[in-house]
């Protein structure tokens, strides 16, 4: 999210697409997690590019509204079609197996971290690729990008698709972790949660996205008594962050990183 300057407020829908793909393949076709995960990534990438193509002419707030709409449509498709478990959800999604051993509990956390690690490596690689500079350039100025030979439409669709793919991978992990998913797991409030993660951490940087997820997930755990008011907290958090520090804690020009850098330079000097 954010790399090519496009906002997706329906990310939960893509998490849902990944989760449903994984769940259906695992329960109906008995495919293993190791097949389901890449399949979820591919399906969400494809659906992401379709949505990207449809909304190519939209920018800023209109794109944001469209993605919200998409989120609602996806949730209702999950609710109305038997294939997606309708109102009962899909149960009995198996845990991944490594050499015949079921991965659960802490091992599952390790597995998720390993996949997160791979995802970060991929994101960092893409950042340094021509695609990365094309995204950056498009966010800065679409006309200038065209004038230097960048096919703006193609890369905007790609940016959308890559974001959707990451959502799909997260969805697959979620489905196999919980073992049970239902349409309401992917409704719009979860998109808001994902949005608050990237705003708190810092839009458009990888470190920001990860730090944001930790903070947003940990906060309700720390303030358990306030659990009921979680959505209010997320929304308040977004508003406060936008006023106080719109670039996020670890975004570009972030104070946290500046401080760390300053300290490092100081210690260099004193040596």
């Amino acid at each position, binding site marked *: 999210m954010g790399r090519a300057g496009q906002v997706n407020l329906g990310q939960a829908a893509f998490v849902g697409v990944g989760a449903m793909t994984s769940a259906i393949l695992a329960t109906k076709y008995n495919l293993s997690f190791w097949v389901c995960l890449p399949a979820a990534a591919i399906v969400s990438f494809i659906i992401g590019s379709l949505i990207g193509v449809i909304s190519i002419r939209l920018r800023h707030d209109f794109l944001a509204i469209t993605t919200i709409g998409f989120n609602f449509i996806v949730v209702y498709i999950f609710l109305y079609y038997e294939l997606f478990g309708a109102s009962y959800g899909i149960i009995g999604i198996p845990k991944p197996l490594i050499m015949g051993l079921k991965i659960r509990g802490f091992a599952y956390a390790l597995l998720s971290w390993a996949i997160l690690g791979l995802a970060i490596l991929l994101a960092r*690689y*893409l950042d*340094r*690729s*021509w*695609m*990365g*500079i*094309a995204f*950056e*350039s498009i966010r*800065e*100025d679409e*006309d*200038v*990008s*065209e*004038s*230097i*030979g*960048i*096919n*703006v439409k193609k*890369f905007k669709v*790609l940016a959308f698709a890559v974001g959707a793919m990451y959502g799909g991978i997260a969805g697959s992990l979620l489905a196999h972790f919980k073992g049970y998913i239902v349409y309401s797991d992917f409704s719009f409030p979860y998109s808001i949660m994902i949005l608050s993660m990237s705003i708190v951490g810092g839009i458009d940087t990888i470190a920001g996205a990860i730090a944001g997820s930790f903070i947003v997930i940990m906060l309700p755990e720390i303030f358990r008594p306030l659990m009921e008011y979680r959505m209010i907290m997320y929304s308040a958090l977004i508003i406060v962050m936008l006023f106080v520090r719109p670039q996020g804690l670890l975004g*570009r020009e972030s104070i946290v990183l500046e401080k760390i850098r300053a300290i490092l330079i100081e210690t260099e000097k004193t040596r």
Partner: protein
Amino acid sequence: MKLLPQSILETDSVTKYFGGIRALYNVSIKVAEGSITGIIGPNGAGKTTLFKIIAGFLKPTKGRVFFEGERIDGKPPHEVALRGIAFTFQVPRGLPKMTVIDNIIAALGGYWYRGIGFIRTRTRRNIVDKAYTIAEKVGLEEYTERLAEELPLGLQKRLEIARALALEPKLVMLDEPAAGMSAEEAEELKQLIKSLNREGVTIMLIEHNVPFAVELSDYMYVLHYGEILSEGKPDEVVSDKKVIDAYLGAGYARG
């Protein structure tokens, strides 16, 4: 009149309407390969519209545009750019939050942006070296790590030219390159344009600064209310009575 060498770019009766407003009418120009071709004319004469049509940002209402003998009107701007037509904006527009060197690297990607070449890394040594060479060529070597938005106007214009050069263009279109520049900066720019031209790059120039255009151009067109009022060698054009009456004023001929 000197026989013109083969033309690299031709427009054939290009006409452009914006709603009911006629911006260009039957404009046919030829740009000789290796030349510097100047286009002068008052504000609103359609000069920038003509550039935008050639670059693919606008579609002509009527007429055709040929580059190296192939039709390019209606092709998207990135395709036109990759064929070898670079252009600079009238008011410098860069990639403001990116460094000068990244601005140039972004423009070097032409080849890799096609197909799925975009997954290749852009930090390879030879690409970075190339970017620094271009920065040096336009005199930006001391500013490579600065953000584009921090540069003063004169240097932003140089950055535009650097980005254009990174495309390894056959034709560069400069939209009022000397606008807002001091006499000294304009002189430096003139030298830069001349040296690029000597290396074989065809240049098209829109200018309000008539002496600047006259000194640089091999051939000139005067646009007036969207139509070509006069064309020819610069000294012929500026002594053309129609041009003096409509645009330059009597003062120019005397001065």
